[in-house]
């Protein structure tokens, strides 16, 4: 039978033969659990007993849950604060690092190091930095010069930025590397032409560098947005005793999903939240595709 196929058909057969493994892998590891999660979001299940069908009940509970809206807001605060701050800082560092020759490799390594460090270890070290006197580094410094202590984590207003800071810091290394690659890809001739015309540095930055970095910026914005929307390990480890606290001030959506599923054993409710998160991430990704297409 194989013999009777045309060359084109044979190519297709072979292509599918090679694709079979990843396709199978993806269906079992990705698509089946995704579909299952959507199914569970319409059910009531405590992991032990039978699953019972409840229709939209989990979603109705979600809409009426004040904690969900608080958490929803937190998730976007992480995004809205985290993305621009990390974008600006990483661009400034990359821009200057690109011009620097002395110890360039060493400095680049230093900036990249936090990205390679375990988020759990980092979160715990920062958690201890933030403690009040007598063990917290920051507050000990403040106290030693006679400034009143700052409640970093034990405050409904300061806690979220305090948790966000190490997360931003940890992601910088990666963004700096991407920015530097983007800067290197800009043809030198543009800069030479600009210099011949006697244009100021500021104009070069605004008219040449940033416009030509557009696709790099879009990539970093989308990439870090997804990262901040999914923030979990920093928050969880810095607030383990009272996850997402105080008073849900730092709780992101992923942490609420985790708690619903594995401390309250309400799998249906957790799945419903997961579906919401999935839709948010889908929207962000589609926006990415749209913007990237536009930039070409």
């Amino acid at each position: 039978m194989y013999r009777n196929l045309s060359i084109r058909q044979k190519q297709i057969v072979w292509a599918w033969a090679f694709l079979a493994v990843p396709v199978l892998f993806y269906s079992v590891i990705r698509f089946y659990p995704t579909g299952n999660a959507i199914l569970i979001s319409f059910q009531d299940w405590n992991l032990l007993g039978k699953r019972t069908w409840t229709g939209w009940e989990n979603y109705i509970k979600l809409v009426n849950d004040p904690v969900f809206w608080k958490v929803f807001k937190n998730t976007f605060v992480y995004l809205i604060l985290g993305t621009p701050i990390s974008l600006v800082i990483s661009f400034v560092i990359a821009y200057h690092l690109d011009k620097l020759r002395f110890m360039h490799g060493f400095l680049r390594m230093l900036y990249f190091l936090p990205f390679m460090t375990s988020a759990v270890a980092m979160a715990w070290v920062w958690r201890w930095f933030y403690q009040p006197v007598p063990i917290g580094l920051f507050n000990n410094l403040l106290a030693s010069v006679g400034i009143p202590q700052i409640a970093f984590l034990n405050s409904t207003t300061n806690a979220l930025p305090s948790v966000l800071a190490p997360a931003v810091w940890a992601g910088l290394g990666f963004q700096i590397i991407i920015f530097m690659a983007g800067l290197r890809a800009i043809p030198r001739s543009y800069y030479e032409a600009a210099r011949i015309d006697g244009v100021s540095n500021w104009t070069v930055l605004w008219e040449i560098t940033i416009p030509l970095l557009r696709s790099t910026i879009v990539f970093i914005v989308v990439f870090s947005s997804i990262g901040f929307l999914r923030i979990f390990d920093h928050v969880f480890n810095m607030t383990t005793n009272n996850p997402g606290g105080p008073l849900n001030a730092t709780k992101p959506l992923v942490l609420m999903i985790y708690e619903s599923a594995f401390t309250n054993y309400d799998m249906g409710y957790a799945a419903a939240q997961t579906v919401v998160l999935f839709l948010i991430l889908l929207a962000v990704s589609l926006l990415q595709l749209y913007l990237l297409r536009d930039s070409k």
Partner: protein
Amino acid sequence: MGITSLKRAALAAATSAAALFAGAANAVEIEYWQYFFDARVAAMEQLIENFQAENPDITVKMTHFPYADYRTKVAAAIPAGEGPDVVQLFYGWLNDYVEAELIQPLPAEAFPVETIDSEFFPMVQAMKGDGAYWALPTAVRSLALFYNERLFEEAGIEGPPATLDELVETAKKLTKADGAGNLTQVGITAGMTAQDHHWFREVLVRQFGGEPYLDDYKTVNYAGEAGVKALEFYTGLANTEKVTAFGFMDEPQAAFKAGRAGMHIDGSFRIGSLNKQRGLKWGVAELPAGPDGTQSNYSSYWVNAVTTKAEGEKYDAALKFMAYITSDEAMQIWLDTVGELPAKPSVGMTEKNASDPVFGPFIRGLEYAHTTKFVNESGQRQVLVDAVERINLEGASVADSLAAAAEEEQKILDEYYNK
């Protein structure tokens, strides 16, 4: 000669094979599951060894999992006819296991209800339902007041406080602050995230004249006058008496371990890790009595139950094993190996155990201990954590904050019981 020896060898092989098969025909193998914790596994290994020596026809195979995977594995295995015949579970999970038909009641012939009622400490009666016991503990835990002997000596304090008033006075002497008024050493640790929510629920509320729950723990009742007084006392330790700070040194037990806290309320499971702390000299006392002399305590425990998977001869073997691991002998072994308290007064209240300087206060506490019937312990704890934070961070009044907490906790209970 060569041939004879060969024959003999063949014969020997045949006989031993026959013996092996005969042995296999009589032997029953049952499986026991628990979560992984070094000392618990070691203690259970010893119990299994003793049990098998007494019952040569039964083999017990123990499997253990990390705590985080435990529930998932049990839930997946038993309905599939796999997994344990005897399983260990937290007392608070009993309802879930019963409803999911993972465990079966213990038969009255082997485990008569009246005998268990009279032989075990009273809080074990929470494991009773539909006229039978569903599960039984080998060991139980309770709370006590840990105190730092070095700091006591340094402050010239003679002994641990016996009442709540003395507790405040003692704590005042143990508190130290730097020039700016920042606490550098606390008199007593505070934090609802640790064991304090048990201390509040079952001890302080009762000592101020209240009853924390009604209707077999289905109705929250601590928002009344007694509860408000109890929470005022508790938050007052930090806010008016200034003998503690919430979140001091991150975690209460860390502060005590580091020698920066004079007193600390914690469970008997903390003994092991405190013993490992070099340079820390500590003692234990019963929880201080209330204004009218009321003593109370909170007790929790892990229980063992026979699963629905055990049938026929495995069922019989599982019952025998259950009987052994809840025997006096097993309890003493558990106390000596794990440091968890015996579940029966006949073992706990022996002269030696009840007057032990470390275990004694915990064991004496068991006599008046209560066991909260949690439906979701971490959820119900969170409610009290939030109550204290509303007072400390948002300036809410104690009464309002506690009323809100009671309402939230009632919602958790209703959602569970009215399913």
